[in-house]
């Protein structure tokens, strides 16, 4: 048992990222005493984002200064359940954060609302194409919430984040040249769209020319000075290109550290304890009520923090790991097809296409803003007819130039087929850096019965606990979706006047490869829904089994979305907090009765 027992608080929040910061803010506003436990270091712009020392690409992107410390804990990974999963020993395919701000400090800033049809995907696919359209073994599910339910919370998150963008419709009226496929909004973006960088502008013109519907990507990178509803300020983004992997030195990229924590840190009802690693949520003898959490403090003492309410708001897979370690919810068994914790583990299906231009054209790829760019959604969500194509899901396509720096340029090198070193590499690398544009098909990833999370039987973390095991591979449906959407990009690169193009496509039968960066947008594993047989959380992100535990994060997504997840995570956090404040606190207990 714990050697130190703290005084009880109303709520304990596990993890200091977006979800944790939002819940802590909302709960303190409701008069609750809140302790936030963050396993990493305390971080702020002053300590981690000061110019110019912080913009060191080697330290930030290659020594992972503000990312998860893998030497303490990692995961194991395999492609299928007949393999031995092996530890993810070096950061590569995905880059979880650590420290106050979490992945919300090192993210880029792409800030989307979910497409309405993606929230009711199973219902929609059944309605449009019939149930038989869903492949055997695919766990296609609805979220249990609709766009209309979430709209006020998407709006609130954008106002807190200071999001830049251009709307298409507000209250049903066309107001601008935003995303033609986007649902109507209750209000405009708080800030106008960022300027297009050159590559994005070429892409915009070409996409329009071939009949697609390009729009400015919504970005939590401020296009102008901004003061958010909490009274904290952001400065205008100067396109410095140091977003992803960095604490923004300009106070332009939204982060929990810049946009929420300054309003919380001085609140006497709030206490932040950094370097506090939560080992488990403690349950009472009925296993239906949490009593608090046990963590290791910075000196290595085991501490018990009693609380009436436990908010599990670490990164997606850490939330699932904590649930499994704590015995919250029934672990998923893929053989019996029972249990829910670990079920519907999903990822995101991203490939990059490169277009080269004449040597007189400088694309200045070092100029960038993390969330900005130009996208089209003609092949995302239900914006196109899947019937004749025979797959489920889609991809937005975009030029999202976040700033390519020296080491990355060297490692990207030249076109496929050119050497990776020597004079031929050097020439091709310089040409590619100076005269090319990169664009992504940023696709969905469906959930499958044999893709899941559980506890590894062999490898342990530095605290002696079993690590999380990922069983994941690319599946035919998702590979075919990627290939179709990427084939459409060829029309755009042709209209752009590219002299050479490499279409980045998944190959049939391709296996997930942990050695190369793909995306940090892992999701699912403890999903929300209306049925406790297929979801770990109800529609308010409350555990079906332990009603004073709410689990907030991308773990709640039943499918991997084509959009970046942060906007949805923030909206779900505000949605859940709203129902905690208005209903749960008045009468603690399950918010959904079966």
């Amino acid at each position, binding site marked *: 048992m714990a050697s130190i027992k703290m005084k009880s608080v109303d709520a304990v929040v596990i993890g200091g990222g977006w979800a944790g910061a939002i819940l802590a803010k909302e709960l303190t506003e409701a008069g609750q005493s809140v302790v936030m436990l963050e396993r990493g270091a305390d971080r702020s712009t002053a300590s981690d984002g000061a110019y*110019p020392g912080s913009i*060191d690409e080697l330290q930030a992107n290659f020594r992972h200064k503000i990312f998860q410390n*893998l*030497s303490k804990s990692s995961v194991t990974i395999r492609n299928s359940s007949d393999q031995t999963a092996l530890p993810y020993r070096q950061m590569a395919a995905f880059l979880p954060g650590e420290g106050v701000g979490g992945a919300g400090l090192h993210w880029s800033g792409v800030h989307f609302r979910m497409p309405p049809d993606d929230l009711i995907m199973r219902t929609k696919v059944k309605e449009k194409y019939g149930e038989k359209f869903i492949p055997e073994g695919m766990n296609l599910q609805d979220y249990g919430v609709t766009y209309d339910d979430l709209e006020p919370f998407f709006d609130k998150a954008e106002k807190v984040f200071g999001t830049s963008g251009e709307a298409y419709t507000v209250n049903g009226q066309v107001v601008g040249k935003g995303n033609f496929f986007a649902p109507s909004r209750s209000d405009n973006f708080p800030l106008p769209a960022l300027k297009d960088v050159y590559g994005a502008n070429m892409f915009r013109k070409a996409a329009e020319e071939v009949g697609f519907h390009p729009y400015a990507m919504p970005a939590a990178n401020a296009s102008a000075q901004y003061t958010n509803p909490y009274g904290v300020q952001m400065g205008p983004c100067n*396109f*410095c290109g140091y977003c992803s992997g960095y604490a923004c030195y300009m106070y332009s990229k939204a982060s929990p550290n810049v946009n929420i924590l300054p309003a919380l840190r001085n609140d006497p009802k709030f206490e932040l304890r950094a370097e506090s690693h939560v080992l488990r949520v403690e349950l009472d003898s009925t296993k239906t009520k949490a009593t608090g959490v046990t963590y290791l403090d910075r000196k290595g003492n085991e501490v018990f923090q009693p609380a009436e309410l436990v908010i599990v708001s670490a990164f997606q897979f850490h939330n699932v790991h904590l649930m499994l370690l704590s015995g919250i919810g029934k672990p998923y068994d893929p053989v019996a097809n029972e249990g829910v914790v670990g079920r519907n583990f999903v990822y995101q299906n991203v490939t990059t296409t490169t277009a080269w231009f004449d040597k007189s054209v400088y694309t200045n790829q070092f100029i960038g803003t993390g969330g900005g760019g130009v996208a089209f959604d003609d092949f995302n969500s239900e914006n196109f007819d899947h019937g004749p194509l025979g797959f489920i899901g889609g991809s937005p396509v975009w030029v999202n130039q976040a700033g390519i720096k020296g*080491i990355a340029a*060297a490692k990207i090198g030249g076109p496929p087929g050119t050497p990776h070193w*020597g004079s031929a590499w050097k020439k091709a690398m310089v040409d590619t850096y100076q005269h090319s544009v990169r664009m992504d098909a940023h696709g969905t990833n469906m959930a499958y019965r044999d893709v899941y999370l559980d506890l590894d039987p062999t490898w342990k973390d530095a605290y002696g606990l079993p690590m999380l095991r990922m069983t994941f591979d690319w599946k035919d449906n998702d590979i075919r979706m990627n290939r179709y959407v990427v084939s459409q990009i060829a029309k755009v690169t042709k209209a752009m006047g590219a002299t050479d193009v490499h279409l980045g496509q998944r190959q049939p039968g391709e296996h997930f490869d942990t*050695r190369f960066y793909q995306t940090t947008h892992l999701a699912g594993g403890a999903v929300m829904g209306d049925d406790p047989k297929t979801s770990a959380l109800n529609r308010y992100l409350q555990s079906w089994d332990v009603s004073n535990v709410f689990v907030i994060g991308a773990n709640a997504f039943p499918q991997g979305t084509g959009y970046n997840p942060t906007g949805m995570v923030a909206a779900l956090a505000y949605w859940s907090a709203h129902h905690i404040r208005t209903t749960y606190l008045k009468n603690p207990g399950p918010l959904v009765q079966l």
Partner: protein
Amino acid sequence: MQGLAGAAALTSTTLPVNAARSASEPAYSPTFFTPAEWAFLHAACDRLIPEDAVGPGAIALGVPEFIDRQMATPYAFGKLWYMQAPFVQGPANLGYQLPYAPRDIYRKGIAGAAAFVQAKYGKAFQDLDAATRDEVLTGLEKGDALFGDLPAKVFFAQLLGNTMEGAFADPSHGGNKGLGGWTTIGFPGARADFMDWVDQYGKQYPLGTVSISGETA
């Protein structure tokens, strides 16, 4: 806003030019690599990024110094990696599974490659001509040779990765001397303010590169 103030200060002030290190500066003395390893490292880096019409090579850029200095950091001791046993080998796509940190990879890799070259060519690697060194490096990159239980490919990937880092990282880490790497590719380094160039479509950026310390080129 201190961030904004800092940016303005750096871009609007004439910065002292810290000229590329003068010839009179004493040669860097490695602390990790032995003299024989140091000679191998130079001869390999020299081919990975050769001096040519495009720009300076790895030697002029100080890449061996960068790698030696990196060997004293937590990274080189494997402190950034999950290094708990057991170490079980598996399919390549499940990633690195050896118990060796970068320091071990260099020590074993250079010893293995040097012995292989000595046996095959009767010479030290550093005494081979450029074309033969390229042939050896290609063999390390693409072949299936093992140095004990260390695949030559793992050593090569470590060396190539660190060489790229050294040539294109901020010069405070010992490489990219005189900002030669960044100048070659046209990367402005720590300028980090493109408000005035974001919509100058298609035009080459006019200002030279600058390091974190304020060195310009």
